[in-house]
């Protein structure tokens, strides 16, 4: 049965889910800070990243120790590798939240466009949704649900493109233009969070099927739209 | 040719001939022993079977072959064997346990003891007889009694019992002792609860075979005074005779009938011997080593 190995794996997976919930908190925090121009909350989000980094390092060390001691194979090995990747994706998401928080601080005293802020609320909610789907489908080993992340990502991508269009139409006010440019980065951060959620979904599919496969191919796929700006 | 190892007939012919020759030689030696033994047994049974009757088992010997039996002799033998067993087993097993479990080989006296026992096993039985006569019968003033005979047979087979018991004790794997020690058992507990129970089959087998040797001994008994004519059933401190002595005496008689009587005695002796050996084999199989 290899009880020590199973215990270690269970612990790692629980830590990963825990890290995911921390990321969700950071994302919600930075979205709220952005919507309300709350500098103090933005600072909190930035500081909160230490906590996520600690979680990230904890999982990283756990994986190192597990690989060195337990020599997992087959599904156990795939689980460890998937956790290794997912851990990194979650940590990157948290970094994007920090970026959003920092941008919030930079623009808190310049005028901003209400329509766009509302748009971000919607984009952020989609990103949150995607993180939840990614984490849940990983926990449930549900490759089908994981693959549905591609569709969700498509929506975020479209929103991202609309943000760019909207910023271009903001007009000639220099303050508003600076704000708009920074918001393009915010938009991109949210879009990237979605991409990482898709990547987590791919790890789920790998864990279940044992095959490495990208859900969408950004460079060759027919009819796909570029995921990057 | 592609598989040279399998090519037939490559061995020199001489090898095969030598092999066959050796096999035939083995068969011949086996059959010599077998035929001799078989002849003896058949001859004895053919001659003696007519005399194996209640008279043989109950009556004392007599000048009249028709009324002569070996009652006191058979009883004497049985008494001696029981006495022998009662003395030789505790002594032999005790010595074996001491030598195997307690004695420190570094000590000179322990090595001397071991050497002594090995040599004793090779001493001719007549020498034991002389010892018995000098020490037991005259020295201790025991007289020519059954006890003296039993004791001298004890001395005779003691080395055999010790050696067999040592073998049996040594065959108990050390891992069992270590396992017992590791549970906090004392040396006494290890020996009494693990080593001894595990070596009982070997000790029993060895003891019975030693007994079988003692039962056929004549020479030392003659020296310590087994009489050839005893009319009464033997007692511990009375005069006695034994089955082999009785047979020896009958064979020496001139009358043909007594030789047939001797054959009957031999049949009884053989039967006792075979029974004891069979019992030893049964014991060994019953408690076969399981480690």
């Amino acid at each position, binding site marked *: 049965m*290899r009880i020590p190995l199973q215990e270690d794996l269970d612990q790692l997976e629980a830590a990963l889910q825990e890290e995911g919930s921390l990321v969700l908190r950071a994302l919600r925090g930075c979205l709220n800070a952005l919507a309300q121009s709350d500098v103090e909350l933005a600072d909190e989000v930035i500081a909160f990243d230490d906590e996520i980094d600690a979680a990230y390092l904890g999982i990283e060390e756990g994986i190192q120790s597990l690989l060195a001691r337990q020599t997992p194979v087959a599904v156990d090995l795939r689980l460890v590798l998937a956790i290794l990747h997912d851990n990194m994706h979650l940590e990157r998401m948290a970094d994007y939240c920090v970026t959003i928080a920092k941008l919030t601080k930079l623009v808190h005293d310049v005028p901003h466009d209400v329509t766009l802020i509302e748009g971000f609320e919607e984009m952020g909610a989609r990103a949150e949704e995607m993180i939840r789907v990614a984490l849940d489908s990983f926990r449930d080993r549900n490759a089908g649900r994981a693959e549905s992340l591609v569709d969700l990502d498509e929506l975020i991508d479209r929103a991202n493109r609309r943000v760019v269009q909207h910023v271009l139409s903001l007009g000639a006010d220099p303050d508003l233009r600076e704000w708009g440019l920074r918001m393009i980065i915010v938009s991109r951060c949210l879009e990237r969070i979605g991409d990482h959620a898709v990547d987590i979904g791919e790890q789920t599919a790998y864990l279940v099927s044992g095959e490495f496969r990208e859900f969408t191919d950004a460079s060759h796929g027919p009819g796909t739209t570029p995921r990057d700006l | 040719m592609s598989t040279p190892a399998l090519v037939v007939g490559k061995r020199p012919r001489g090898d095969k001939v030598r092999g066959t020759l050796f096999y035939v030689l083995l068969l011949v030696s086996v059959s010599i022993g077998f035929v001799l033994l078989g002849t003896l047994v058949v001859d004895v049974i053919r001659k003696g079977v007519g005399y194996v009757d209640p008279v043989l088992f109950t009556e004392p010997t007599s000048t009249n072959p028709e009324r002569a039996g070996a009652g006191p002799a058979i009883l004497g033998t049985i008494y001696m064997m029981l006495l022998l067993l009662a003395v030789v087993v505790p002594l032999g097993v005790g010595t074996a346990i001491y030598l195997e479990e307690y004695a420190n080989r*570094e000590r000179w006296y322990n090595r001397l003891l071991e050497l002594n026992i090995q040599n004793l096993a090779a001493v001719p039985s007549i020498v034991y007889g002389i010892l018995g006569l000098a020490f037991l019968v005259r020295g201790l003033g025991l007289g020519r009694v059954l006890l003296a005979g039993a004791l001298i047979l004890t001395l005779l087979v003691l080395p055999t019992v010790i050696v067999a018991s040592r073998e049996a004790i040594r065959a108990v794997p050390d891992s069992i002792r270590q396992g017992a*020690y590791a549970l*906090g058992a004392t040396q006494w507990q290890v020996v009494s609860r693990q080593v001894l129970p595990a070596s009982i089959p070997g000790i029993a087998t060895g003891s019975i075979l030693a007994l079988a040797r003692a039962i056929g001994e004549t020479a030392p008994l003659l020296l310590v005074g087994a009489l050839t004519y005893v009319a009464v059933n033997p007692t511990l401190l009375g005069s006695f005779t034994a089955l082999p002595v009785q047979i020896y005496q009958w064979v020496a008689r001139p009358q043909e009938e007594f030789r047939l009587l001797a054959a009957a005695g031999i049949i009884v002796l053989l039967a006792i011997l075979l029974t004891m050996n069979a019992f030893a084999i049964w014991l060994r199989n019953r408690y076969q080593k399981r480690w």
Partner: protein
Amino acid sequence: MPDMENAPAPVTIAGVRDRRVAERQQAEPPVHRDVLFDVDGLTASYSGVPALRDVSLEIYKNHITAFIGPSGCGKSTFIRCFNRMNDLIPTALVEGTIRYHGLDLYGPEVDSVEVRKRIGMVFQKPNPFPKSIYDNVAFGPRVLGWKDGLDDRVEQALRQAALWDEVKNRLKASAYSLSGGQQQRLCIARCLAVQPDVLLMDEPASALDPISTTAIEDLMHGLKEAYTIVIVTHNMQQAARVADMTAFFSVEVDEESDRRTGILVEYDETPTIFTNPGDKRTEDYVTGRFG
């Protein structure tokens, strides 16, 4: 479309405003371990030739500690010092001290039999006694004179050793009717029946198949809640899998006399030994570059 109504209400990030995170990171408490054995300057020799030299380390309560190293590094000699098994070898000599709960195990007032009651040992080859399953487990309690509730003791020990379900219907069967892995678990149960403090295991799985090995390892993992376990293993992976602490021993060859002596090279937490050992010799050994 994500439903905005169902999205969680905006949250503030608790625990950050007062910078508790930073404080938490600074104030990481040191790992607390209870020292059970304190070995200081231990040297073990046979016939005056040291097999292991100058070992000092601490064994922690409720931890699994593994001794690894190449053949002849003295790891088995070392583990036998903890329950004074070396006392059974007349030529063995142990110098230095092993303190157990602060008491010197080799002190003049300490009885080695008493030590072995508290510190159980499981051997390389399963060594059940040639008795029934029940009697194997009951041996220890009987030796210690614990007569009450023997059945319960036996059942509890067998349960702890994860063997009860497999043998509960044939407790009277010979221990030799069990498979190798079951026999080894029986030997563990036998140790547990005397309620020791410590389990010493000298390569407990080296004679077993992989499935049985896993069973033993899982068992150890469960037992460390209640016992302190010390294991010698030649299988590094096994040490990596089961041990909390790992000690690496190596052989030192004296150029002049060609004499080989075991030494302790490194002792640390198992993950450290297997991911970032402090000594080059340890790294060479665990990566397979040794020799």
